[in-house]
């Protein structure tokens, strides 16, 4: 069962991400998400969009990012679901090994933390590639 679908398209530009975070945060709040969950959804959007712009599109601004949010009900539980799609070359962000929080300072190279945070903050994550687009979906349980 689905209801309202919230849709936003942003240009592939870092300065557009904050708008996407606010948009998703407001949608999550409207669907009953608590303050922590709203923050976790917004931070996840920031991380995924940043990866797409910096790595998928490699800074090329002539692309866009599509965001769709909706509530799904599964096994009696309600989830706020966010799908972010792009037309960068196929890449599954879930294929990246998790960084190790125990890594010493001098061995830290900085990569991989964004998707790691999304995995920690969200309850379900899925990746698909179809119609020449990457689709990254992450769900957060609603209270």
């Amino acid at each position: 069962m689905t209801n309202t679908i919230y849709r936003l398209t942003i240009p592939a530009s870092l300065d557009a991400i904050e708008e996407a975070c606010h948009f998703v945060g407001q949608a999550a709040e409207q669907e009953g998400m608590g303050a922590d969950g709203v923050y976790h959804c917004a931070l996840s959007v920031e991380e995924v969009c940043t990866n797409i712009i910096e790595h998928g599109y490699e800074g090329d601004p002539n692309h866009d990012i599509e965001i769709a949010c909706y509530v799904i009900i599964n096994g009696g539980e309600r989830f706020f679901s966010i799908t972010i799609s792009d037309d960068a070359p196929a890449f599954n962000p879930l294929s990246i090994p998790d960084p190790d929080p125990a890594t010493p300072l001098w061995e830290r190279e900085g990569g991989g933390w964004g998707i790691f945070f999304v995995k920690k903050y969200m309850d379900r994550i899925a990746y698909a590639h179809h119609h020449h687009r990457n689709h990254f979906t992450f769900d957060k349980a609603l209270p």
Partner: protein
Amino acid sequence: MADITISSHEQVTLVQVDGRIDSMNANQLGTALEEQIKNGNIHLVLDLSHVDFMSSAGLRELVNTLKKVKKAAGDMRIAQPSPRVREVLEMAGLDTIFLIFDTQGEAVASY
């Protein structure tokens, strides 16, 4: 956007950030901190009490800055991180790498 305020407390340089640290502006913070190190201000305290949003881009700048300041025989210590910031610091294991203080005064006095 974030506002960055820098002040001196004897040998300690206090850097206070107010707002959001994300992929758009994290390098702005990194540049501000690097300037301090280049100017010989290597006893840094970063007050994150008014940062309500920090992504991995912000953490990357903090780690890069810590490496630079330690190479210069200094340190960067974190004061009163907001709960949101503390959460990401802990998830990334940075709470064991940075010295973190509950108050700005304790962080400044720690040098």
